[in-house]
């Protein structure tokens, strides 16, 4: 009795040889590194992920080489499509990569295996975040590089524009990542996930002014798009890349950056709630 009263062992001490569990951040970084290595070793995935937005930029630059946006605005096709395609590329590496990727990992047993280990659940999401941010940055640099080097496009020079690019980049990527994670739980299988993720994403690209300028779209289409982040990401990017006078082309005649900020921020919050409500480590049949 004396021993236990004078000497109050912590739970860790009562177990011989017990060491500290590794911290969430450390495991999260380790997971990021694993995810990144895994991603870049599949050249098909790398090609599929990175090639698409750049390919469209090249195609549009060639097809619409003689495009004219009106008397007061002077932009070549590359400059005109660049912001929308950046927004689309960000959504592709976040929403599509995670929506399909996590559903696949749920289906093939990766999540189940992880759940059986002492890995902190938050580390899994930290790992995904690290990978997505790296891919998003890669997309941004690739598109800017192709536009600048390939077509001599004018890139923003003002600090304010780059600040806008930065927060639209971060908020948009986070919002789309969370949506992707939530969507992955809707699918019953990996195969189902590609339908649930890719079809709405494709529709949104057409509705959000990525391929077709918003001023050419019917009101109801723009209103539907306004519910989702992509339209606002594209708009925020346009505000940074287009000349100030191009604001006249927007449906409201202004960039409305406060709305961009508000909608993306709301999606981040809604996204977290959706993820918490829907995320599953197991498939439905695992009970």
């Amino acid at each position, binding site marked *: *009795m004396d*021993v*236990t009263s004078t000497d109050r062992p912590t739970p860790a001490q*009562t*177990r*011989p*040889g*017990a*060491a*500290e*569990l*590794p911290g969430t951040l*450390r*495991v999260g970084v*380790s*997971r990021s590194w*694993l995810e990144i*290595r*895994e991603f870049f*070793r*599949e050249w098909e995935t790398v090609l599929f992920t990175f090639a698409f937005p750049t390919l469209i930029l090249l195609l549009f630059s060639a097809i619409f080489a003689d495009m004219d946006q009106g008397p007061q605005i002077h932009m070549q096709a590359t400059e005109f499509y660049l912001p929308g395609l950046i927004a689309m590329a960000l959504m592709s590496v976040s929403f599509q990569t995670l929506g399909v990727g996590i559903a696949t*990992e749920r289906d*093939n*047993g*990766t999540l*189940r*295996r992880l*759940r*059986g*280990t*002492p*890995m*902190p659940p938050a580390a899994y999401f930290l790992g995904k975040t690290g990978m997505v941010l790296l891919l998003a940055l890669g997309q941004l640099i690739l598109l800017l590089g192709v536009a600048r080097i390939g077509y001599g496009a004018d890139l923003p020079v003002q600090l304010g524009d780059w600040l806008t690019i930065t927060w639209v980049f971060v908020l948009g990527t986070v919002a789309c990542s969370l949506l992707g994670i939530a969507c992955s739980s809707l699918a019953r299988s990996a195969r189902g996930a590609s339908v649930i993720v890719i079809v709405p994403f494709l529709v949104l690209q057409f509705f959000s002014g990525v391929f077709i300028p918003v001023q050419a779209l019917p009101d109801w289409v723009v209103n539907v798009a306004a519910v989702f982040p992509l339209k606002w990401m594209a708009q925020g990017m346009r505000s940074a890349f287009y000349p100030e006078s191009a604001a006249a082309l927007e449906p409201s005649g202004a960039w409305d950056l406060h709305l961009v900020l508000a909608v993306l921020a709301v999606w981040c919050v809604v996204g977290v709630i959706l993820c918490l409500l829907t995320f599953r480590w*197991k498939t439905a049949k*695992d*009970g």
Partner: protein
Amino acid sequence: MTEHTPTAAPAVEVRGLHKRYGATAAVDGVDLDLARGEVLSLLGPNGAGKSTTLEIIAGFRSRDRGTVQVLGSDPKTAGRAWRARIGIVWQRAVEDSPLTVREVVRHFAGYYPDPRPTDEVLELVGLDRQARTRVRALSGGQRRRLDVALGIVGRPELLFLDEPTTGFDPQARHAFWELLRQLAADQTSILLTTHYLHEAEALADRVVVLADGRVVADGDPATLGGQVDARTVVSWYADGEDQQVRTDQPTQFLRQLLDTHPGEIPQLSVHRPTLEQTYLTLVGDAPPPTAAPGGDATSRQPTPAPPQEAEVWT
């Protein structure tokens, strides 16, 4: 001065476990005990409730009723520290990956407070020569070894294996058994499911036979074998039909039979069921025990013969 430490608790203690899937009772009142350092095999045919039981014990499936204590905690609510003390080898093999065996094992080691060194794990499971091989290039048996590597990298006190050798060729199976024996010698408590009787016999200190979600036998493999002797079948032909008697005292019964049948007895045979047949009897769709007359009076065996076998009593 008996201080209660986590290590003092039994590895597994299950009481009155129930789990239904819709109208089917997958686990229907299972009690199970696994002492520290013991190797217990859950044996039974497909659909007997082995995997469901294992998954509930491993904290992976919810239960409808019953109490479960694993290493002193309820798996339903146990946290990371508890998971660090168990290892799980799932029924499904490790997923495809472009990463190498060493990369994957090293990464998983990072989840645990006191992992085994990666090279030691690879040597233990016999994958040291495949350390630089990509996971997707491994053969089926090698992949299963990787599963075990991931299950033991955290130095678990308790290891769960769900049908670990399904699809192995006999040579791979024996090598795998050797590995499990090494772990058991290292004081790892092991709970494995299998539908191979010989596997249970070769590995386990104790075998629990499940059928239709219930425990139908529980004992060491030798006892299970001993139950076989209780059911020797003596058959012959007399009075225009096949005669058959099940007895655990075949010699005494035969003496009587020879006394009452002078001369050659047509089609006389004394048949001792194999372990395999006993097992099939145990898990079979067996009718309720009959209060058997004559030579069978001494039988205490609660599970009678397979139904396809017509029993004619003398």
